[in-house]
């Protein structure tokens, strides 16, 4: 394989992996801290993408659309936790699965009613629409580099939040021992609401920033969801570093898989998961007890 094509695939892998990381980190935190399995998490990604579409049509500017969108996502996540998800904590996994599945149906249909079922494209902002030459014949879109850069920045911010702030310390404590956090007198309800809003915002941001590169279509949330489940299983529930490693691993395997084994690329990721399970059933970086 020629060097510039290889480089392109590497860049694609990193981009995909980082996007998956943003969505999966929310999923793993929500599960690790609140103990809720949330099938609707992929819907947040989808809603983010559709929000980017409608907002950028309204404002004419993708960056302001993303800024507004993130704020909306945080508010939406906060309210959703309060109105709906807080009732799921006491329930068993089966009920959580079905309740969040019902939520997926509701979100999909509401989107269908409000925005319709068409596939949409979101225009790339003019400032980022150029391409970077790679080698003599190939080039790589600047916007895709922007996506990876934006995800990296957000990922870095997330790590700073988790490692260096008091909130982050509470989140990490909650991920490994929910009861202890409660007994420390921390307002657990507020913590849950914040974590949930954070998770929604991360997923929505991923959807928004990726919208110009891939189209915006119904069902995009479901595909992301299942891959993110695989990422969380491989990385270990509750572990954000684990989610990063796993997401990048999945990004590379999926991207290079499509190149070398196009007919089987869909299955490769699951095969990876099977291999990891044989070796370490609790995931690579197990942090909390399930």
């Amino acid at each position: 394989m020629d060097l510039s094509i290889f480089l392109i695939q590497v860049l694609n892998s990193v981009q995909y992996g980082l996007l998956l990381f943003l969505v999966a980190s929310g999923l793993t935190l929500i599960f690790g801290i609140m103990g809720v399995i949330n099938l609707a998490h992929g819907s947040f990604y989808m809603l983010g993408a559709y929000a980017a579409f409608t907002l950028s049509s309204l404002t004419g500017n993708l960056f302001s659309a993303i800024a507004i969108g993130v704020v909306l996502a945080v508010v939406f996540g906060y309210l959703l936790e309060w109105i709906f998800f807080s009732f799921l904590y006491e329930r068993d996994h089966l009920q959580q699965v079905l309740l969040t599945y019902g939520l997926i149906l509701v979100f999909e249909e509401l989107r269908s009613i409000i925005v319709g079922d068409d596939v949409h494209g979101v225009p790339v902002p003019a400032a980022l629409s150029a391409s970077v030459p790679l080698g003599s014949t190939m080039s790589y879109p600047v916007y895709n580099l922007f996506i990876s850069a934006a995800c990296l920045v957000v990922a870095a911010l997330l790590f700073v939040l988790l490692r260096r702030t008091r909130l982050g310390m509470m989140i990490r404590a909650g991920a490994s021992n929910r009861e202890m956090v409660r007994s420390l007198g921390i307002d657990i309800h507020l913590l849950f609401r914040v974590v949930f809003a954070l998770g929604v915002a991360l997923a929505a941001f991923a959807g928004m920033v990726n919208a110009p590169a891939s189209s915006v279509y119904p069902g995009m949330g479901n595909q992301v969801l299942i891959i993110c489940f695989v990422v969380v299983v491989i990385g270990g529930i509750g572990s954000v570093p684990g989610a990063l490693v796993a997401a990048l691993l999945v990004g590379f395997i999926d991207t290079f898989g499509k190149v070398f084994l196009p007919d089987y690329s869909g299955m490769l990721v699951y095969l990876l998961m099977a291999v990891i399970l044989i070796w370490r059933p609790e995931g690579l970086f197990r942090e909390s007890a399930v």
Partner: protein
Amino acid sequence: MSALRRALPLVALAALIVLPALAGKFYVELVAKIMILAVFAMSLDLLVGVTGLVSLGHAAFFGLASYMLVLAAPDKYAATSLWISLPLAVAASALLALAIGALALRTRGVYFIMVTLAFSQMVYFVFHDTKIAGGSDGTYLYVKPVASIGSWTPLDLGNARHFYYAMLALLLLSFAFLRMLLASRFGHALRGIRSNEQRMRALGFNTYAYKLAAFTIAGAIAGLAGYFSAVQFGFVNPEMASWHQSANVLLMVILGGLGNLFGAIVGAFALVLAQDFFSSLTKHWLLLMGGFVILVVMLLPGGLVGIERAWLHWRAHRG
């Protein structure tokens, strides 16, 4: 249990037996379809309601068996023998369940749910992406399997009425088999695993082996349902192994009530009828469906079968 409750299943059975004489072809086919789904739901109830294993990938076994029927025909227009293609399909599902179970059961709780989902997606992609049987478009079953042994043909699976009674027999036989299984030492042990797995291990039960056996049996019975579903529709596509199908059957089980097989049967009827009803109301019926799912799970934790108990409980707490 009141006399009414005891009589209900018998009344229902009687209704099922006389239905073809009273109703038109549409209803005969609809109820046959529901009975197949009821078998599918009972197999999942064995896992979820009895053993406590929440599998979100049960459709993989349903879908595999359907495809096996189509793939078993040497050429498109040749009919296979029921007595060969059916065991083949069920064995394939059982083997797949054994393989997936062996790996998935190394995990617990939420991991298990996610892993079963992911493995069934793998199966879905095998059918969706490769050229095995028409890819995402699916394939038609041009000729239904033939149930002859030598020159004797006891039933014609293409005849709606024959097919209906065959499915009723399938439902009754599956029910009887599963009831027997539940009453056995194996069944009691499965319930023990659901109640307190750690204690079961401490008592000396090899819980992994029990869970794997349950998973395999459930997969085989799901395959049984999948095979006849393909026979009925004459068409297979990857959606039969999709996670929507898995979520659907899970819904049937919880809607009806976990742990006693009647719940699965009631759930299958209730869900299909609810879907038909909602889709007749509006194009956006999935919204109603989503709301319905949420309401049922929130308000009826014991399912429809437990509705009497839920009603008494509610009345007792109001007064």
